[in-house]
Structure formats: structure tokens, C-alpha cells
């Protein structure tokens, strides 16, 4: 029997093609309205997808890494991804909600309670796409430090390498603090014991006492341990420093089944439970050609770009699945059009191949992914007599 695969979709504005918003099927004047996002997430839920991610950044979109691009013909502006996820959580029932939240400038304490709150709002469907930012423009939005004007597309120099190492070390600390805070309340800390007048058993609340270069955090969290215990932590990674982050799911960018197998082996050896391949998908070849023409350039991406019909995509996914990839995060070239084809055509093809669920069998994101219940690092284990 074919191995089951996991399927997620990456939501970003009008889609991943820079000219996607100009397609007749797009809704460019609704990108900042809650109804737009709810429609997309419900569509993904109808397809029984594992989860959606929502792109975000602490700066304006730009085609350049080192600054803004000045283009008025691309989508500019975003709403906070975590709040979009919170807005759709109470009115969806199964699909996982994985907003992007930057680690570089944010407070791990706030990020931890915000994601825990999303887990409460969705009764166990929260995840996090942790994102590192080295952009000088974003650093200037916080005024805490100045980032060098490095061309990160040329990573060979020692200065760039040291800067990157520093960013990833901070990211690792951030994720560590967020995770510790989630565990800082044991699940049964709330006791409501009228006899002793105690609402909580304070021995089941824990200081996390984290000390690091960029922040030190005492704890415990203000938010009780969320329904999943540990919401699902994910990251997009293109090389070893990203694979090393303490995530449950890593999104990687192989170019074919062979490179997928190599990357999967490397990420697994570093302890990643689930490896997803990112694939940009254009499920109407004419549309992609039209948008390339409108945008004045052929679409380019860090991830493999598939252009073709759903049958061809199903074939590609199954072959990469056979190479060891656990699942896929599909980046629709145009929204909602390509997501509609994923749900209407791709999912039934994968089901016919015995590779995708007929219906949800769990209600939490950890459940969809087959991740085990998360033990609490602070809970005292009973010693058998």
C-alpha cells in the first residue's frame, strides 16, 4: 500500500506569483478583509488538508533582500498573520493554523502566549512557522540594533557567515524559551480546592530561568499549558542551520526526488520529526504564462515550481513521497484558483492512490501529523516503588 502523505498549503496575499493579484480569478481588493482569509482556510479544510501556513514579515514585501523594490505593481501590505489565524480559528473545525511569526525582533514571552492562545481558540490546531529576519530594514523598525547591509544571496564571506550564525543562535534561543514557557504550567496545575482556598497548585508552575545573549526570561507563562501541550513548531530551511532548529516540521526545497532524499536524510539525522517539501504550484499552465507576461519576468522561486495539471502533480508528490518526504507545503501560484484545483482535483487523485485521508481522523494538528502527545519537561515523573 502507498504511504500516506501530509498536505499543507502556504497562503500569501493573492498567491505566490508577483502578478497573481492581476489574474481575473483573484480578489485583490479583499486581501485585508477577514472574509478573504476565512474563505481560503475553509477551502483548505474542505480538502481535509493538514494545515495552512500564513506568510508574514515585519516589513513591506520586496523582491530584493537588501531593501525595498519601489514597485507599485506588486502586492504591498499585510495583516498580522497570527491575528488572521486567530480570526478564523473559532469558525473552522479541523484544519491546522500555522501563522508565520518572526523570531528576530519579537519577545519570546509574547510569542509563546500568543501561540498558546491560538491553540485555545482552535482547541488544539495551532502551529508556528518561526522565521529568521536578517533584513536591515526590519531591524530599523525596532531601533534596537543595526544589521549590516549584507548581500545574503552571497553567503561565502566570513562576515556574512558570522552574522547568520548569530541570527540562528538567537532563533534557537527564542524557540527554546517559547517551548519552555508552554511547559511552565503542568496540565493539572489548576485545582480549585475550596478546602484550602487554593486555585492552583503552585508546585506545578515552574520558572524557566532562561539566560541568553539577547534575552533572559524568568517565567512562568501567564497562560496555562495549551491544549496540545506543545503546539507544532515549523520552519522553512534551505541549509543545515535551519534544519538544526528545534522544529517538529521543517519545510525544505529540493529540486527533484534525488535531492529530496538527501535533504530528508540530513534533516532526520538532526532530529526533525517531519520533513515537508515546498513546491510552488501553477495548476493552469496558461495562467502562469499570462502572469509572467504581465509581470514582465518569468516566475522564479527558492522552491521547485510545478506547472501542469493535477495528475502530473500527484505523480510528482508520490515519487517524492517514495524518496522519503513526509509531506508537502504547496505554495499556490494564484489564490484561490490553484487552491481550488488542489482541493477539487489533486486531493481525490491522491486518495485514489491510497495516499491521502478520506476524512480527518483527529481534531488537533499534532493528531493530523501523527505526532505523539508532548511530554512536559517540568512534570515530575512518579518513581515506581
Amino acid at each position, binding site marked *: 500500500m502507498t504511504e500516506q502523505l501530509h498536505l499543507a498549503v502556504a497562503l500569501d496575499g493573492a498567491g505566490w506569483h508577483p502578478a497573481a*493579484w*492581476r489574474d481575473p480569478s*483573484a480578489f*485583490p*481588493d479583499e486581501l*485585508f*478583509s*477577514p472574509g478573504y482569509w*476565512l474563505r481560503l482556510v475553509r477551502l483548505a479544510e474542505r480538502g481535509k488538508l493538514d494545515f495552512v501556513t500564513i506568510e508574514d514579515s*515585519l*516589513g*513591506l514585501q520586496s523582491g530584493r533582500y537588501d531593501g*525595498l*523594490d*519601489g514597485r*507599485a*505593481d*506588486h*502586492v*504591498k*501590505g499585510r*495583516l*498580522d498573520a497570527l*491575528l488572521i489565524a486567530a*480570526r478564523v*480559528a*473559532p469558525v473552522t473545525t479541523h484544519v491546522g493554523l500555522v501563522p508565520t511569526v518572526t523570531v528576530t*525582533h*519579537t*519577545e519570546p*514571552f*509574547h510569542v509563546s*502566549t*500568543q501561540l*498558546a*492562545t491560538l491553540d*485555545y*481558540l482552535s482547541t488544539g490546531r495551532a502551529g508556528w512557522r518561526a522565521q529568521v529576519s536578517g533584513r536591515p*530594514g526590519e531591524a*530599523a*523598525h*525596532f*531601533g534596537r540594533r543595526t544589521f549590516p547591509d549584507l548581500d545574503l544571496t552571497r553567503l561565502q564571506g566570513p562576515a556574512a557567515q558570522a552574522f547568520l550564525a548569530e541570527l540562528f543562535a538567537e532563533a534557537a534561543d527564542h524557540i527554546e524559551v517559547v517551548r519552555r514557557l508552554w511547559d511552565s504550567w503542568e496540565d493539572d496545575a489548576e485545582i*480549585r480546592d475550596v478546602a484550602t*482556598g*487554593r*486555585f*492552583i497548585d*503552585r508546585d506545578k*508552575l515552574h520558572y524557566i530561568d532562561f539566560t541568553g545573549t*539577547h*534575552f*533572559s*526570561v*524568568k517565567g*512562568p507563562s*501567564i*497562560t*496555562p499549558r495549551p491544549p496540545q501541550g506543545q503546539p507544532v513548531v515549523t520552519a522553512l530551511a534551505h541549509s543545515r542551520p535551519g534544519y538544526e532548529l528545534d522544529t517538529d516540521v521543517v519545510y525544505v526545497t529540493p529540486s527533484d526526488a534525488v535531492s529530496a532524499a538527501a535533504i530528508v536524510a540530513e534533516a532526520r539525522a538532526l532530529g526533525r520529526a517531519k520533513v515537508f517539501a515546498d513546491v510552488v504550484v501553477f495548476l493552469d499552465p496558461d495562467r502562469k504564462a499570462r502572469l509572467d507576461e*504581465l509581470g514582465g519576468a518569468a516566475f522564479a522561486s527558492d522552491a521547485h515550481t510545478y506547472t501542469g495539471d493535477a495528475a502530473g502533480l500527484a505523480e510528482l508528490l508520490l515519487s517524492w513521497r517514495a524518496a522519503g518526504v513526509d509531506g508537502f507545503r504547496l505554495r499556490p501560484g494564484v489564490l484561490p484558483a490553484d487552491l481550488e484545483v488542489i482541493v477539487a482535483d489533486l486531493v481525490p487523485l491522491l486518495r485514489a492512490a491510497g495516499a491521502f485521508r478520506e476524512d480527518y481522523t483527529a481534531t488537533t494538528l499534532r493528531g493530523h501529523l501523527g505526532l505523539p502527545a508532548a511530554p512536559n519537561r517540568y512534570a515530575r515523573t512518579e518513581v515506581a516503588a
Partner: protein
Amino acid sequence: MTNTKKQVVLAAHFPGVNNTTVWSDPAAGSQIAFDSFRRFAQSAERGKFDFFFLAEGLRLREQRGRIHDLDVVGRPDALTVLAGLAAVTTHLGLTGTVNATFNEPYELARKLASLDHLSGGRAGWNVVTSSDAFTGENFRRGGYLDRADRYTRAAEVLHTARELWDTWPAGEVVADREAGVFTRTGDPGHFVHSGQHVDIRGHFTVPRSPQGRPLIIQAGDSDPGREFAARDADAIFSRHGTLEAGKAFYADVKGRMARHGRRPEELKILPASTFVLGDTAEEAAEKAHHIRRQQVSPQTAILLLEQLWNKDLSDHDPDGPLPAFDPVVDDDSIIKGRARLFDDPLATARQWRAIAEEKGLGIRDLIIEVTGRQTFIGTPASVAATIDEFVQSGAADGFILVPHLVPGGLDEFVDTVVPLLQERGVFRAEYTTGTLRGHLGLRHE
């Protein structure tokens, strides 16, 4: 006939993490499950309230050097819950406390503007500041602000947020497919802010939100706090719940507004208030006493006494007499994670001793007597009349009601008092606008 009576503003405060929220009652539900927030907010919306309010605290309280375990504890991130509530309500304003010391203005402005979009113009921000190193231990900033800098920081963070909200003019997003023009300018949202507490520059990412600027709420009572409110706030949470104190506060704050070029009706003064309703005055009084005993357990009585005495009193009998010695007057407070409660502990202790002696009260009964008596106790008719009187006589523009139970604590008020206020012609029967500023009669900025 034209209705000339001043309209009452009503807000619903989700019960907080202190002893006034009763958790021992069989009707007390979860403080953290989203369903509690949903039910509470939907109740407020059924009552046509102006807005829902959620407080915040960024470090768990400690007393005697240990995490405080007697009160309700544990709460969500405020803005995240508000975004969730936007999905299950349609008109109710959605406001919360967000700390201006331990959040950076870019991120804060972004989240608040996003909430305003996601709620269709119903967002509000209660701007608070902290000055304590205790809370700072959870954040990058660490340390703390001098008390004197609290309001300068709050004002600068707020002004920066306003600058950011104003960076995208209305109509910046064109989304003209044919012309290939998404935004009028290539890189919208440009800003530079260079000040004492905030030095940032770049581009804001959120298009102008439905209200232009979310509602600004302020809660301080000090002179700089009042000045801040008179200049910058759209609503103020006051602590002045009696008619005379309310009138004095109201006149003082509204009197400061002209200096800032503002009209008195541009700032709503809303005392935080609790209530107990009964079919008769006697029944209400009995219920009020019962609730007070739930709020002040024997253990809580000792802890509240320690907050004045600033000393470990765990060896004292809750039904016995007050300590024989005076409070410890010391900068190092026994309680951490909340504002200091007593300006002159020795004088307060003298008052409490006098009351205890006169009425023959032990510690618990004294604490019940001297702390946190409910603001409105009576029949729905008398409570409605009192609220109306406060508003018509210039002691308040309305009230922020703080029930003692989650999630059903507002229901009785909605079912019995709201209809009477509507009959009096001082409270809306239906929402007439879709935004929070609209509900309060404030213009969109």
C-alpha cells in the same frame, strides 16, 4: 420627541485575576477556555454593550516570595483573543490592555491595525505602562523605567503608533488589475520617528484601518495620567465610583481637555464598577454579602491583610484580631506583580483598627467590610436609576462593569437592567453603527 438625554456607555470587563473573581461558586466556569470568552462577549453583544474589555498582566503575582495561589490565575494574550472574538460577534467593540513598556511600537501598531481590519473597525487599546523590574525579567528590555518616565514612554509609544497608522492614506490600495497598479506609491507606509524612547524608521505594512485609529483607553489616576488622558485618550477607566468623587474627577479631567484643543464629549469617562442584583433591596444586600464571603476566603483575608501590613501574617487566625504591631513601612513590598495599594499604610491601619474595634470584627470580617464592596447593590430598577443619575449629573459617561463570575456573570444585568435603561431612553435598543468609535459617537480619525 427628540431624545435630549445623554446616552449611557456600557462596557463589559471579562473578570480578572484577583480575588473579586469568584472561582469557588458552582457557576464559575473556565477562565481560559475560549468558550468562556465567547459566551461572555456574546452576552455583552446581546445587551447592546459598547465594548468588551480584557485586561493583561505579564508576570504572575507573587506574595511572600511565592506564586500567589489563592486567586484565579492564567490568562490568554489579549489581542489574540480579541481577534477570535471578532469571528463570533458582529458589532461589539473589542478592547484590551497592551503594555507600552514591554511591547515595541511597530509591532503593537501593526497588531492593533490588523485587529481593526479583522473586526471591521471594532478595535480598542488600553495603554498601560509598567515600571517594575519584576515584570521586566520576562522581556528583552529587562530592567524597567523610572516611574517618572512611565507616561513619557506611554505617550511616545502611542504617538508613534498614531504616526504609523497615518502612514497609509485612505485610498492607497488601488488594486487596479488593468493598469497594473496595486498601491498608489511603490513603497507605501514610510515613517521616521526619532525621540527619547523610540528611534525607528522604515515602512509600515498595514493599510489604513476602518476606524483610522483604534480607540485609545487610559486607566491612570495620577496627575500625569489625567493629563495623558485629557490629551490623548478616547476613554478613561476611572476608579471613582461614588457620585461626589465621580463628579470631581469628571470635572477635573474634562476641564483639562480645552488646553489640548479637545471638546469634553471626545473623552468618555467610565468608572469600573461591580454590581449585585436582587428582587428586593434586602435580597440584593444578602447576595452581596454572600459574594463578599466567597471573594474573601479565610486564606485570602490574611493575604489581603499582608498587603497592608507588608509582612508575613500566616500565623494569624483569620477570625482573630488584627496584629498587635504596626505595618512595616518599607520600599520592598511583600507583594510583587501588581500596583501598590496603599499610599499611607500607617494611617490606613489606624482606620482599620478603629472599625474593627467599633464593630467587633475579626480579620476576615474586617477585610470584607473595608475592601472591594460592590458599586451597585439593589433591584434592577434602582441600579438603572443610579446609572442614569450618574450619567445625567456629570459623574460619568457610563460604566465598565466587572462581574464576579465567568462566563455568566453579565447575563442578569443584560436581562434586567439593560431593558430599563432602554425604557428610560438612555441606552440604545439596537446598534446603529458598525464601529466602536461609531458606538461612542466619536468620529473616525
